[in-house]
């Protein structure tokens, strides 16, 4: 291209140096544009990181309702190795905590007459407390079922007409029956299964085994699922939160789209400011452009020079803005995050606990920077073309 070859012939370092000198010279006007751009970019970086943190918290809390960020199910064959499996999973760096559960179906009977179907989840109460919110949904009694004990969902308890302290009989498809003491009643609606009952973790062959995993960042779910394939039996079915919490996934996507829209809006406002300031600059430098044209610089080259100056200024401001935004995020992280449970106490996904910890990602830093640069260049296009079209004779009459 002719312009590029001219610039190459003309030594681009000379022009970059001159553009920097020109910006320094117009510091008082340039610093308004610089500050505005830097502040806008910093705000956007912080906002993006904060929204990432909100998404992480909401997904984390939703995952703690039951299945975690990653869950896997398979038919039990060798129950002896489950302990080692749990240890191995807990050693993975991405994994925050693991809950192992057994699942089996049975019939519960009380007083010889009342019958109710039950989905029995065998749990380790201590792990389950760390993992999910289920222990907070008790309607009476206590949560930690030991051997010979059972926690009933309120629907099952209602059907059987039992309360904490009563005894029920568990009938399994294998033909065995076991007597269990009811130690607590649970609000099963939060768990999502009205026939829920919790017993102590006691895996038997042919039980369905479930491992539910909480990870440090929801973005790592696919990677963890991939690693699980190498650890679990081949027959294991593995799901991530994207499939388990489909509705939430949609909300997260909407939130991401909204944040991109915010970036675009701020970039548009920035563009108006840059455009008007650049027009003023062109008007003030009319004679300069006239002299350059006299010396032999083509109109297109003048437009490129102005764009180069804008790119330098906006680029530097955008980088400063990113650093500022990163600094703000670090300050919030050092302060322990932002506790939003007071503000949104009516939303379980916030109120369930934990502050919002802003999370910086490469897109969170790059998107505002590139948006500022792009809007700056687009905004200075018209003023640059105006500078290029300045009549030499008229420009030289200007003092």
């Amino acid at each position, binding site marked *: 291209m002719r312009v590029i070859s001219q610039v190459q012939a003309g*030594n681009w370092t000379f022009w970059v*140096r001159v553009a920097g000198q020109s910006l320094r010279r117009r510091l008082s006007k340039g610093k308004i544009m610089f500050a505005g751009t830097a502040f806008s970019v910093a705000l956007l970086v912080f906002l993006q990181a904060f929204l990432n943190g909100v998404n992480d918290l909401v997904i984390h809390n939703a995952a703690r309702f039951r299945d975690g960020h990653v869950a896997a199910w398979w038919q039990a064959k060798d129950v002896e190795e489950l302990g080692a499996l749990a240890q191995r999973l807990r050693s993975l760096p991405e994994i925050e905590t693991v809950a192992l559960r057994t699942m089996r179906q049975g019939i519960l009977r009380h007083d010889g007459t009342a019958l109710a179907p039950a989905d029995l989840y065998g749990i380790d109460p201590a792990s389950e407390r760390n993992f999910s919110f289920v222990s907070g949904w008790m309607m009476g009694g206590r949560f930690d079922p030991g051997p010979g004990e059972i926690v009933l969902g309120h629907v099952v308890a209602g059907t059987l007409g039992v309360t904490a302290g009563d005894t029920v009989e568990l009938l399994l498809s294998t033909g065995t029956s076991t007597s269990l003491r009811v130690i607590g009643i649970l609000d099963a609606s939060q768990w999502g299964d009205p026939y829920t009952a919790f017993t102590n973790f006691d895996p038997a062959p042919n039980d369905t085994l479930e491992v539910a995993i909480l990870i440090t960042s929801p973005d790592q779910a696919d990677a963890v699922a991939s690693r699980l394939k190498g650890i679990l039996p081949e027959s294991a079915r593995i799901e991530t939160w994207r499939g388990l919490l489909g509705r939430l996934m949609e909300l997260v996507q909407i939130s991401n789209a909204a944040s991109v829209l915010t970036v675009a809006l701020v970039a548009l406002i920035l563009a108006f400011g840059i455009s008007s300031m650049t027009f003023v600059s062109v008007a003030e430098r009319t004679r*300069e452009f006239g002299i350059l044209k006299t*010396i032999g610089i083509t*109109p297109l080259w003048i437009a490129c020079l102005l764009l180069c100056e804008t790119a330098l200024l906006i680029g530097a401001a955008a980088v400063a803005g990113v650093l500022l935004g990163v600094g703000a995020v670090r300050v919030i992280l050092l302060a322990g995050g932002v506790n939003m449970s007071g503000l949104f106490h009516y939303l379980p996904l916030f109120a369930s606990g934990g502050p919002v910890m802003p999370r910086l990602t490469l897109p969170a830093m790059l998107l505002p920077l590139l948006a500022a640069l792009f809007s700056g260049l687009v905004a200075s296009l018209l003023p640059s073309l105006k500078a290029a079209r300045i009549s030499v004779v008229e420009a030289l009459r200007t003092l």
Partner: protein
Amino acid sequence: MIYGQDSTCSLALRDISLTISPAEFVSIMGTSGSGKTTLLSLAAGLCHPTSGRVELLGRDLTGLREGALARLRRRHVGFVFQTLNLMPAMTVAQNVELPLVITGQPALQRASRVQLLLHLAGLEDKAQAYPGALSNGQQQQVAVLRAVAHRPDIIFLDEPTSSLDSERASVLLDLIAFLNRTESSTVILTTHDPIVADRASRRLHIRDGALAGTF
């Protein structure tokens, strides 16, 4: 050459027919508003005539687009204005270097040419200064150096000494005359000062947009 439209139009030049030979030093003298700047602008290809033709170095400028005119000026023309010639954001050295950058000279050649020219004008110590730190006379000297840096075939100077006192004007004219002799550039200079006009080998007089004679 007519400026303006309808009732506001004014005839800047009329019936101009002029040929200037290579390496000539020509002065065009006239009062303010006589059409000197317009004549220079036409000759340098900064604007097009309302009617007629302009040939520069054998090339018809009529109908050439702005980009083509710029490329022609870049290689073959140097221009010095009455005042405010220099790029304020560039140092003295960068101002002189500018035409060499535009014509694609390698950095080493540019540096040595700039050094030579600044030495010629006794301005080596001002190389890194900005135009604002120079006197009017020094600024005009730098403007002349910039105009000749790329060894153009022709240099146009529009009242280069009008803002200078007689001593500085004389120094500047000595520099111009020296460069005319050593670089063999054609020099066309406009002025309203007869003393300045006398420095040229050929002197033209312009009045009310028309050439009034040679003297």
